[in-house]
């Protein structure tokens, strides 16, 4: 009864959110039509939508999206992969973690964008440096969440391992790693959304394709409609990635679902 009431309330709130969103769009359109808003900067929904339809039609949009997504996936797998591995090692070894903490402390606050000049010098302006920027972005959340996950293994279960005379390997594979999976998954979720939001930064490096490129290209050409199409794609695909990751989480972490 209570649950039903709650989900009903949620439905109403969700509808409210959508109504507000639609309201903003309608207001934007009307204000643009009446000349209250400067459409050369802010464009307006109909123009953006026209542009969108056109770009879907000539397949240019999907090409930009694919270009960005493939960079993001590459960067994510490299960055998050290294983060996971290093996180497991540091989480398992107190000594190494203490040593690493200094470096984590210094390096972590540096935003991925700050590495770009160095990356261009080291790797040139090709794909490599773009993927690396994204990899750096997704490395940190994965590293930190993995360390946290490994370290926060239930002490009671660790003691159970001792009582049952389990060797180190069994303790790691059957107790520590499964315990860390929820935290690792949280890390992966953050890593991929960080990777996606880094794509704009990465495509500042001499790109000729990609959604990030599209936004900057539109700015150079003063085409706000095109710019908004790009921005909207960043947002929409970001949401989509999050939904996919949440579904995946439910599947993978069936035992961890508090219901």
């Amino acid at each position, binding site marked *: 009864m209570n649950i039903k009431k709650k989900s009903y309330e949620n439905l109403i709130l969700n509808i409210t959110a959508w109504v507000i969103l639609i309201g903003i769009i309608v207001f934007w359109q009307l204000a643009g039509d009446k000349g209250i808003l400067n459409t050369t900067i802010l464009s307006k929904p109909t123009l953006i939508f026209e542009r969108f339809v056109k770009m879907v039609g000539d397949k240019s949009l999907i090409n930009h999206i694919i270009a960005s997504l493939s960079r993001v996936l590459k960067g994510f797998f490299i960055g998050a992969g290294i983060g996971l591995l290093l996180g497991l090692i540091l989480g398992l070894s107190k000594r190494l973690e203490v040593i690493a903490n200094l470096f984590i402390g210094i390096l972590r606050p540096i935003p991925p964008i700050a590495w770009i000049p160095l990356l261009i010098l080291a790797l040139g302006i090709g794909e490599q440096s773009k993927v690396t920027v994204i990899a750096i972005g997704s490395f940190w959340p994965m590293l930190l969440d993995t360390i946290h996950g490994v370290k926060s293994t239930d002490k*009671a*279960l660790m*003691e*159970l391992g*001792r*009582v*049952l*005379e*389990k*060797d180190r390997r*069994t303790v790691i594979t*059957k*107790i520590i790693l*499964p315990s860390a*999976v929820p935290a690792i998954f949280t890390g992966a979720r953050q890593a991929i959304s960080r990777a996606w939001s880094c794509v704009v930064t990465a495509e500042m490096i001499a790109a000729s394709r990609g959604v990030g490129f599209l936004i900057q290209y539109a700015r150079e050409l003063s085409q706000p409609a095109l710019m908004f199409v790009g921005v909207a794609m960043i947002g929409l695909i970001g949401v989509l990635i999050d939904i996919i990751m949440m579904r995946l989480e439910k599947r993978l972490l*069936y*035992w*961890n*679902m508090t219901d």
Partner: protein
Amino acid sequence: MGNNDISGKRINISHVRKEFQIEKESLLVLKDINLEIEPGDIVSIIGGSGCGKSTLLRLIAGLDSPNEGEIALDNTKVTKPSLDVGVLFQESRLLPWESTWKNIAFGLPEKFDKEKKNELVAHYIKLVGLEGFERALPGQLSGGMQKRVAIARTLINNPHVLLLDEPFGALDAFTRMNLQEEVVRIWKEQRMTTVLVTHDIDEAIFMGNKVIIMSAKPGIIKDVIKVELPEPRSRVSVEFEELRMKVYKEFFGDDRPMEDYAI
């Protein structure tokens, strides 16, 4: 599967002293504990919260070591945990991501004959009455059923010593009594030396052949009360009630009128 050949080990606790270092202060938790538990016996240790019951049990289990004195099982000094000593904790401590079956099998050594493992797990699932729940995850089981899984996991190695640390404390009264009876039944079959730590006087009397009373600060053994009740024990017999009063008196001294305890 006959386990009747299992007999318990003798537990010898001599001059055990245990202190914990907290910051710079040292906390004396156990002071000169001496205790001998006969092979195959079942004893209860009862005492207020914080008197060192768990600490004593952890020492017997080899999870911690005493500052002075020693603990021996059949004359072998305890230095580390062993599969021969089964421990049942207050919390069931199941692996939340594994099924009933896998959790129980986790009690066995990793390198164990597969066929034998299947047989043993099936046997213990039956022993604790969990048939049909082999594939259920801990989160899908009630507290009592989770406890049954933990019991099966502890017993699957045929331990010669069984240590129980307030194992039923978190369960409702009916489930608790039910499981007390089951553990006693299993003990009667297997005769592993069993030490039950509890703060429940009824549980201590119902399950133990002796009730060892501890007092706190520092933890010492205050008294040992023999339980001589006709078997099977009844919780509502006159003899049981007499023992209950005796234990109450041990706890609260004799300076209060009887009526005060017998509420």
